[in-house]
C-alpha cells in the first residue's frame, strides 16, 4: 500500500511483467463483468452496457497480451504476490465509487481513472527498469492504456455530468431478511 510503483518496478523480469499485465487485464475483465451484472440487476441499463463494453475492451487487450506471451513461460504467483501499489490492481474500479443509480458520466469517470492508473503503472515500469525487453513491453502496454485513456475521454464527453440529486431514490431500501 505504501510502496511506490517505482520501487516495485525495478524488480520485474520480462515474464513477470507479462504476467502482471495479463492479470491486470483479466482482473479488469472480471471486475467490469461483475459490475455490469450488478447494474443489470438494478435496472441501470445504460451503465450496464458501458461496463459490458469495457469488459470486452479489456478482454481484447488481454488476448493481445496473451498472444505476445505465448512463447514465454509465465511464473505462477499466489494472488498476494502480485506487485502493484495500491490495494487493488491498477485497472480495477474502486468500489467506493459504485452506486446503483450511478450515471454513465460517473461510470466513465471511474473507468478513466482506471486507465490512467494502469497507464501510470506501465509508464513507471518503463521509466525505472534497466532491462530493455521489459522497457519495450512496458512502453507498448503504456501506449495501449494511453489509447484507452483517449477513448474514455471521448466517451465521457458524450455524457453530461450528474445532477445534484442523481442519487435521490424516493423509496427507502428494502429489508429482505
Amino acid at each position, binding site marked *: *500500500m*505504501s510502496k511506490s510503483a517505482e520501487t516495485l518496478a525495478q524488480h520485474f523480469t520480462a515474464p513477470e511483467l507479462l*504476467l502482471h499485465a*495479463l*492479470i491486470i487485464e483479466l482482473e479488469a475483465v*472480471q471486475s467490469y463483468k*461483475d*459490475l455490469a*451484472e*450488478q*447494474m443489470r*440487476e*438494478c435496472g441501470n441499463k445504460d451503465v450496464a452496457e458501458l461496463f459490458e463494453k469495457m469488459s470486452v475492451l479489456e478482454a481484447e487487450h488481454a488476448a493481445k497480451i*496473451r498472444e505476445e*506471451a*505465448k*512463447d*514465454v*513461460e*509465465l511464473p*505462477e504467483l*499466489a*494472488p*498476494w504476490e*502480485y506487485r502493484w501499489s495500491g*490495494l*487493488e490492481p491498477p485497472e480495477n474500479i*474502486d*468500489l*467506493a*465509487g*459504485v*452506486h*446503483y443509480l*450511478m450515471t454513465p458520466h460517473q461510470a466513465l469517470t471511474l473507468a478513466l481513472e482506471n486507465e490512467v492508473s494502469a497507464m501510470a503503472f506501465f509508464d513507471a515500469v518503463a521509466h525505472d527498469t534497466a532491462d530493455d525487453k521489459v522497457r519495450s513491453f512496458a512502453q507498448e502496454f503504456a501506449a495501449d492504456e494511453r489509447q484507452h485513456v483517449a477513448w474514455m475521454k471521448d466517451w465521457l464527453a458524450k455524457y453530461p455530468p450528474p445532477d445534484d440529486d442523481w442519487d435521490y431514490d424516493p423509496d*427507502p*431500501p428494502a*429489508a*429482505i*431478511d
Partner: protein
Amino acid sequence: MSAVAPCKLKASDYKSGTKPVWCPGCGDYHVLASVTKAVAALQLAPENIAVISGIGCSSRLPAYLNSYGFHGVHGRALPLATGLKVARPDLTVICASGDGDGFSIGGNHLLHACRRNIDITYIVMDNEIYGMTKGQPSPTTAPDWDTDLAPGGTGVSPFHPLVIALASGANFVARAFSGDVKGTTRTLAEAISHPGFSFVQILSPCVTFRPDQRDWKTKVHPPPVEFTTDAAQAARRVMTDDGFNIGVLYKGSRDKYNQSVEREVNFECDFDGEFLV
C-alpha cells in the same frame, strides 16, 4: 501460455453464479472475491468446503459460492459450524457473518468457539451497522452514530472483536479490509490453513447506510510490526489498536478442539451389559 494450468481450479470455479442481493458498491463483493481466490490458491475441492452463515447481508455469502453451505438462523452460525466440524473433520468449514449476527446475538457463541479452538475459520464482515434491517447500531458502531433506533447515538462503548477473540483463546486473529483484495486473500488463505479457531474481522463498508465508510480505504494501514506468536504480546498490541491495522495480529499454537466423529462408525457397540443385575 496461460498463467493458470488447465486442470487447476480458478477462483471463478468457486462462484455459484447466483446473483448477489447486495447493493452495488458493497464491500462484501470484494470479500466474496477474496474468498474464492483464497480457496483457489489452496486448491480445495469445492465439494469439501462448507460455508456456514447466520442472518444479515454478509450471511448471504454461502449461496454465492459453489461449495456446500448452510444459511442458518440469526446468531447461530458458529454452533452450526462447530457441530458440522465435529461430525465431519474432513471438511474445510468456513463460518461467515456480520457484526450484528456475530457480535450481538451471536456474541456468546464467539466466546465459546474461541475457547474450544474448533478448527474452523470465522469471517466477520464488519460494517459497524445493521445493514439488512436498515441501519440500526451494531456492537461495533461508535457511541455517537445517529440512527432512528438510537437518536443521537447509543452512548454505549463499542465491542472490540480482536480483543475478545484473543482473550477467549482464538488461535489466529487478524483484521482485513475488503478493498484490499490481495491482502484479504492472503489473510484468508493463512487463516484457513492455520489449525484451530481462526478469526478474521474484515472491515467491509456499507455503501447504503454508512457512506462515510468510503474513506476507510485511506485510513487502513499495515500494522507497525509483524504478527506475534505470543498471546500476551498480542494483547498489549491490540489494546492500542486504532481499528485500522490491517494484517495478522496473532498466530497461536494451542491444540485444536479434539472431539470428532470417526469416519467409519461402529454400529456393533453393545452397552447392554452395564444394566444387567
